[in-house]
């Protein structure tokens, strides 16, 4: 599904942040990437999703065998790469539901499916809303406008559930969530686990991993994967901290 080989990247005109990341994620797998502040977690998410402002200086990323880095951000999205934002962006005046439907139809078109009509769409929406315990009023508001932190994160997972990506990258989706919201979000993520889908969770803390149990855990430190292991690695980190992995902030 995703093959990252010796990836080096920097902030445009700035210092190098990723210094040779290697990572392979197979369909059906859930990977957790953990690491201290400044270790390059968000840069990795940005580079994979095509966020402007980063420059890849070396290495390769293959997504389903294709050169991911050669694709524009919207192309990647339509091909099934989804990024759940750490800080979801507000778009005033644009109805959340309208936005979602536009996105869904763009993705469906790429898959060779027809546009969803209003009825089908509403039905699909209601099913997912229930799963995440999101009120329908959220749909009628502007995209992320006036949402609480928890609502924003839940909205990201809701969008993910609707768009059904092949590769979902969750950038600190658990940060700022209270325990109830964390459980709801986790339920949403777990519902999306499946043999054809890969999920990469970027997180500081182990607590999300209690609810979404990963197949693999990686420690990103100093711009490289410093250690990889099973789910027990997360527990170990909780005990020892990131200090053992070098240049922790």
């Amino acid at each position, binding site marked *: 599904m995703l093959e990252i080989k010796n990836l080096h990247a920097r902030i445009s005109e700035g210092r190098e942040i990723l210094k040779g990341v290697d990572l392979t994620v197979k369909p059906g797998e859930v990977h957790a990437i953990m690491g201290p502040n400044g270790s390059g977690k968000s840069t990795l998410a940005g580079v994979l999703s095509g966020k402007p402002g980063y420059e890849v200086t070396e290495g390769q990323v293959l997504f389903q065998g294709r050169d991911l880095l050669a694709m524009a951000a*919207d192309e990647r999205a339509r091909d099934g790469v989804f990024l759940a934002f750490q800080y979801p962006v507000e*778009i005033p005046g644009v109805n959340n539901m309208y936005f979602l439907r536009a*996105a869904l139809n763009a993705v469906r078109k790429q898959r060779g499916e027809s546009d969803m009509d209003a009825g089908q769409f509403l039905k699909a929406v209601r099913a997912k809303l229930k799963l995440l315990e999101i009120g329908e009023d959220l749909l009628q508001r502007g995209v992320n406008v006036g949402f609480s932190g928890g609502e924003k994160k839940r909205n990201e997972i809701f969008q993910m559930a609707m768009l059904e990506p092949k590769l979902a990258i969750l950038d600190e989706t658990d940060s700022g969530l209270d325990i109830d919201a964390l459980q709801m979000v986790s339920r949403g993520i777990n519902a999306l686990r499946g043999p054809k889908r890969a999920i990469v969770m970027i997180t500081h803390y182990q607590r999300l991993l209690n609810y979404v149990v990963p197949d693999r855990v990686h420690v990103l430190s100093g711009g490289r994967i410093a250690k990889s292991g099973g789910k027990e690695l997360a527990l170990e980190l909780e005990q020892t901290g990131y200090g053992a992995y070098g240049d922790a902030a």
Partner: protein
Amino acid sequence: MTDTAAAHNLAPLREGYKYGFVSDIESESAPPGLNDDTIRFISAKKQEPQWLLDWRLQAFHQWQKMDSPHWAKLRIAPIDYQAATYYSAPKRQNTPKSLDEVDPELLKTYEKLGIPLNERAALAGVAVDAVFDSVSVATTFKKTLGELGIIFCSFGEAVREHPDLVRKYLGSVVPQGDNFFAALNSAVFSDGSFAYIPAGVRCPMELSTYFRINAAKSGQFERTLLVADKGAYVSYLEGCTAPQRDENQLHAAVVELVALEGAEIKYSTVQNWYPGDAEGKGGIYNFVTKRGACRGARAKISWTQVETGSAITWKYPSCILEGDDSVGEFYSVAITNNFQQADTGTKMIHLGRNTRSTIISKGISAGKGQNTYRGLVRIQPKAANARNYTQCDSLLIGDKCGAHTVPYIAARNPTARVEHEATTSKISDEQMFYCQQRGLSKEDALSLIVNGFCKEVLKELPMEFAVEAQKLLAVSLEGSVG
């Protein structure tokens, strides 16, 4: 041209009209230049009564003493008014005969805007009688309106058929000498529209939707007069979202609205004239005077405009709130891209007690466009408890454009309450990336964000217009993000 020459021209024309003569009239136009004789020629051509000729001449004599306004934040190349032609019958020689002869780029735009097929040809300037069968439709509508006592016709027809109404209201809101361009229009106006809604009648349809094509040829000095009698209601749509063929560079229109006691007029405009090319060459100069008077208690006038075209827009649709409890509204979206300039806004003049006004202005600048909101809120001494709320938002796309806000507030009554809010924002890279990360193309993302920004104004437009306007915003901003 001398008086005799004008008189000489008059005779054959009258005969021609009598016998339904049409073919020769096409080649007849006034010689370039502007003087008393030009005015007489135009008036004679239109077979106007003496009072209207006198009115035009009066306007012309005032105009001669006036200077082109220079206070707007606009760069305007000098205009040689003596070089222009002020009367020209529609030319047919150069018009395309079918859609096959029309510029494919123009057709592509129509398609993007979702303009119905049968209208595209007419908009592109294909000889209307060859393709368009709206005449029968128009007749049906006219009958419905007639049964309600609603008068809706060309200005010329109104002068002939309803001279008393025209005489009573013409120039009563925008006097001949109001400003340079209004004076010019009053002297040389070509044609336009007239509507009168009798007391207590609610006009059952959006006026002008059905004839938007036919009205497209009203010319560069258009004159519109709408009168809503006591308790009447009318919604009027001006313009068209499709770019129109137009060889005139200077457009100086005048629109006058009169709302009597308890009447309501809703006036919506979508202006999409040729903005000039990406290098700033060509494009229409759109210098328009629009004003409405709420002449009775509880009258309401609401302007909604979407301005995306023209190289230069100079336009301030205004409300004079004379009647107690009368209401004025102004909702505006103005886009400037490439080298376009817009200086637009409104004037709300509060004269009556408890008068209220709302101003919502959304300016969008892209490319090297310059966009200025200029507005005046004046509360006169007798306007006790007057209220105004103004909101001016500017959106910048790129870093070579400009947005300016120039609000004037003059409150001469201590009970007045005037609120003004202004914001300026840029479309952020984060917003664009968020949309793109959800699968939307750059163009769709931009269109979505811009439409969200304009939502409060777009929702004031009649449904059908709003859909086209949304698409138009997207088309106008094409190529503005890298």
